[in-house]
């Protein structure tokens, strides 16, 4: 990864963070391009290896598939995990298990920055309050534009440093790692997406009996070797039946 590639990826990482307004805000930045699935395409284009980036990016996406970030709570840092772990995995030739292990590590380490970042953000917010009190209204309205650059330091710099100065180290570790370590990483990383699914199931399951739908979806693939689209068609059928039943019940009441 050369200097320009590291800068571009770090810039993209900052632009697609949940708070950044400059790339279409939350809808386009955070929830669209910032999802590991879509980000992998762009990271792949920057690194010149779209197929590898997509293949590994999907595994990072799956860990974070159920990520909900309610206000005030500190969640695993998906943004840093995507933009640090994925490029490093692509350039050092990691397998999916090692990629996931690295992503999980980065995501948990990244939460360390949440508190100092929050504290630093109070500076522009309090300044905005002061400007309104002093009647400098135009200046107050402009604070959310420049004040945001504090977040730039908490995104661009860590991503860039880890990518540009970390790639040599990561490549050395990957190529010199003993067989047993690589195997453990793979055994550890391979089922890791189940953690992401469990978070999501926690949201989707209203009654424990709803788990039957998960089981049906699972069996479609494991027993019948069905593809995604087939499962989706049947899922829509079940959803339609459920929807009609609950509407009919309300019609009677």
């Amino acid at each position: 990864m050369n200097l320009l590639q590291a800068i571009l990826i770090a810039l993209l990482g900052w632009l697609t963070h949940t708070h950044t307004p400059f790339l279409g805000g939350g809808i386009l930045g955070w929830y669209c391009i910032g999802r590991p699935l879509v980000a992998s395409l762009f990271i792949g284009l920057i690194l010149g290896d779209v197929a590898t980036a997509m293949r590994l990016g999907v595994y990072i996406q799956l860990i974070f598939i159920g990520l909900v970030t309610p206000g005030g709570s500190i969640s695993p840092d998906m943004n840093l995990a995507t933009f640090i772990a994925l490029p490093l995995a692509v350039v050092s030739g990691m397998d999916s298990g090692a990629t996931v292990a690295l992503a999980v590590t980065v995501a948990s380490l990244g939460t360390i920055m949440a508190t100092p970042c929050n504290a630093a953000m109070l500076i522009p917010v309090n300044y905005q309050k002061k400007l309104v009190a002093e009647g400098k209204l135009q200046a107050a309205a402009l604070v959310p534009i420049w004040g945001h650059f504090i977040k730039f330091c908490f995104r661009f710099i860590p991503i860039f440093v880890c990518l540009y100065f970390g790639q040599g180290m990561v490549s050395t570790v990957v190529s010199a790692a003993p067989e047993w370590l690589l195997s453990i990483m793979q055994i550890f990383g391979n089922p890791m997406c189940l953690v992401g699914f469990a978070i999501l199931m926690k949201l989707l399951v209203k009654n424990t009996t709803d788990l039957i739908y998960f089981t049906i979806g699972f069996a479609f693939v494991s027993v019948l070797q069905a593809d995604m689209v087939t499962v989706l068609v049947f899922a829509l059928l079940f959803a339609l039946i459920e929807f009609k039943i609950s509407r009919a019940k309300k019609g009677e009441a």
Partner: protein
Amino acid sequence: MSEKKEILSKKIIRKCYFNWMLFNLSLYQPETMQAPALVKMFGDIREDLYPNNFEKQKELMERHLPFFNTEPFIGCLIPGIALGMEAEKASGGDVPDMLITSIKSALMGPFAGVGDALLPGTIIPILLAIGCGLSADGAITGAVFYAVVFLAIMLPLTWYLWNLGVNLGAKAAELILGNDLKDDLINALNIVGLMVVGCIACSYAKLNLAWQYVKDGVVLVDLNALINGIWPKLPVFLAAMGTYYLMAKKNWTTGKVILLYLVIAIIGYFTGVLGV
């Protein structure tokens, strides 16, 4: 009502929509959360609401300084309502300051709940799961599918909710929150979500049992073949159920579960029970 419409031209409504959509979290912090974005939004249209009236403009911005937080995209209805009310107030309507503040505070909790359940809890994971299925072999189809479908849903939806808030005021919130169609729709979509997750859990998660009982160079018992003979990929299914049980029923944190995975991987490797 007609006066409010005169003040709020289409251009202003659009300007405020983009202002909110882009800047809602730009100065996000635990103290006032999304409030700085509202201050910016009203600051940018202060001349339109109160031309050459500095005191009123200042009051307008001060009203929106205190804490505000909701799910910003489904909840964009609330800044929309606030915009409608401010416009009515500016055109001489009898709208007490307290009313605007209390409506904002009353709605932000419910909309944070509905918004989180609907957006990152339902629409996004379902689309992502489908996208991941389509991109499994490194193809870009899944990424393109997700981006296109997500934007095609969200841009019209947020624009609709925004205008609903501006035009109907607090009635709009009642329309959304009191609507049981929405609940039935979410319940039905949850089924789609669960089935799709079951499908990708089976396709992606791997758990191989390596233990074999060998006697005189002949494999007598192959645990992996044995278990998978009962039901294909049974170990993965059990691991999924176990993880769900620990996180949903025992309230284990993600970190704790990941540590458990690590311990199991290490022990499993060295005892030969688990393999790559």
